[in-house]
């Protein structure tokens, strides 16, 4: 099964999303800060990363994505931005930072699963 990495600082959201994705058979790992994600990702080598944009302390999700994309071994791993910021500008910022797709919270699981599957199949959009 593909391995997903969830970068999320809110414990409830992390728990909820982890449980629902685990139930659908994904292997999971997670980080609660951008720095932890940068540390963990090269070792875990996930197939896809779900990136919260507003990450409380430290660097935000956009900066984390930029740095991940700069790492040769992770440049090809798709990142889906997942944020409670729902403005059109947020979507564009995410895509500009290197995210392959964008989804808003609250999570609409069927919609998110469709996006994850599309990315894992190598389909943009």
């Amino acid at each position, binding site marked *: 099964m593909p391995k997903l990495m969830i970068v999320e600082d809110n414990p409830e*959201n992390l728990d909820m999303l982890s449980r629902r994705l685990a139930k659908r058979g994904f292997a999971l790992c997670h980080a609660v800060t951008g720095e932890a994600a940068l540390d963990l990702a090269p070792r875990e080598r996930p197939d896809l990363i779900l990136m919260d944009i507003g990450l409380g302390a430290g660097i935000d999700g956009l900066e984390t994505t930029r740095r991940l994309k700069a790492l040769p071994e992770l440049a090809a791993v798709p990142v889906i931005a997942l944020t409670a910021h729902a403005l059109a500008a947020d979507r564009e910022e995410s895509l500009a930072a290197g995210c392959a797709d964008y989804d808003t919270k609250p999570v609409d699981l069927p919609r998110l699963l469709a996006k994850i599957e599309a990315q894992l199949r190598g389909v943009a959009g």
Partner: protein
Amino acid sequence: MLQTEPGFLAIPLVESYRPELVLLSLAVIFFAGFTSLSLADRMLASFGRIRTGWLLGAAIALGGGIWSMHFVAMLAFQLPMPINYAPGLTVISLLVAIVFVTVGLLIVSWRPDSRIALAAAGILTGLGVSAMHYTGMAAMRMGALIIWYQPLVLLSVLIGVVAATAALWLSLQSKTLVFKLVAAAAMTIAVAGMHYTGMAAASYVPAHGALSTGTDLQPGVLAVAVAAASFIILFLALLAAMVDQTLANRARAEAERLRDLNEKLEGMVGTRTVELLKAKQRAERASNAKTDFLASISHELRTPLNAVIGYSEILIEEAEENGLTGSLEDIEKIRTAGRHILALVNDILDLSKIEAGKMEVYIERVALKDILDDAVTVCRRMLDENGNRCIVEHAVAIDRVDTDVTKLRQALINLLGNAAKFTRNGTVTLATRLAERDGADWIEITVHDTGIGIAPEHQEGVFDEFQRGDSNVARHHGGTGLGLALSRRLIRLLGGDITLASQPGTGSVFTIAVPARGRLAEAAD
């Protein structure tokens, strides 16, 4: 004994003056001087034809005054023989005075600030006085010959020129009464000084047999008549000048008042403009603050809603797996309420963006069929839940449209969702057709349901925020109460509109009309 010419005795005649008429002659020229200088002031204060009028008035007043003074003074002058005056030369002498003075005033009028012009005008006036005087003398008809003492003749001309120049100069220095009176006095010296000096330059020697002690003329009466006529004419002229001066002063005062008022108004407008600019900046800051605030609210609400909806969905899955149908219904209510809050947050954010003028429109060429299919796909579950049949009647000929696909789709999903919610076991028809408005192609998309319909009295209000056709009915069907308001605003952003036709119990037809070749609307709503 001086033999001048055969037939004339070279014994000068005894000359005398009637002092009261001499005084009268001085009064005439003083008054004429005062009047003419006042008229000249009016001339300098006016323009065009009116200036010419004042110029001629001043010239006639002064020229006429000089002539009157001369004539009254001649009537004051007495020789022991009758004196007559040739009418032709007498009239010419009047014209000579007026012509010289006119030319002098023309020069002043042309260059009031030039000293050379002033001197030229003074010389012309002085020469005018002299020319008038000696022409008048030449008009004398009597039994005597005039012998001139030339130095005094020259002196008389010099007095006329110098004093007239001084009078004009004084008159131009100030408009105060004192200056005017002093200038008039100078003019009196110019004319009377010239005249009496000129008279002193002349001696009269009688012809044989012409000596007489009396005269048939009544010089006193004639002199008073001439002087009175002059005074009346001059008085009228002076009156005109004074009235004009008063009117001019009033006009100037009014102009000043208007200018002050204008300046005050300009100041007020300036102040107000600054105030309005500040108010505008405050409003813009407030508007930005509101948008930022709403963006923050949106973010803060979404995070806990993510947990509410997410966990309720986990619970629903677990309840279904474990057959806990009793709690399943309750948990579904929590999820529905959570989704309702989410819909509200989304709609409020969209409405506030439209109101702040921050909702941007991206026109692109899209397939209309794709938009219809998307809307049906999204609403499929709602349509099926209420047992509705959905028919799509698409006019293939107009498939490609230029519009903002996101906004059109959002509005269409809203209308289709409403139709699905308010119709049970009926038919929802989605139809498109091409229309022409003002020579341009328009797309009309109708959403026709066979549902409960909307009463006429509620039809106007359905597009208002938080107004639903019938709140009791609507409450059972969910919805934010913002969907139609938002949809109409979105379609108006695309340059179109949404309209409604409905009959209670029969169904509703909502029509989206948008330009097929979309243009940007000027402003939101």
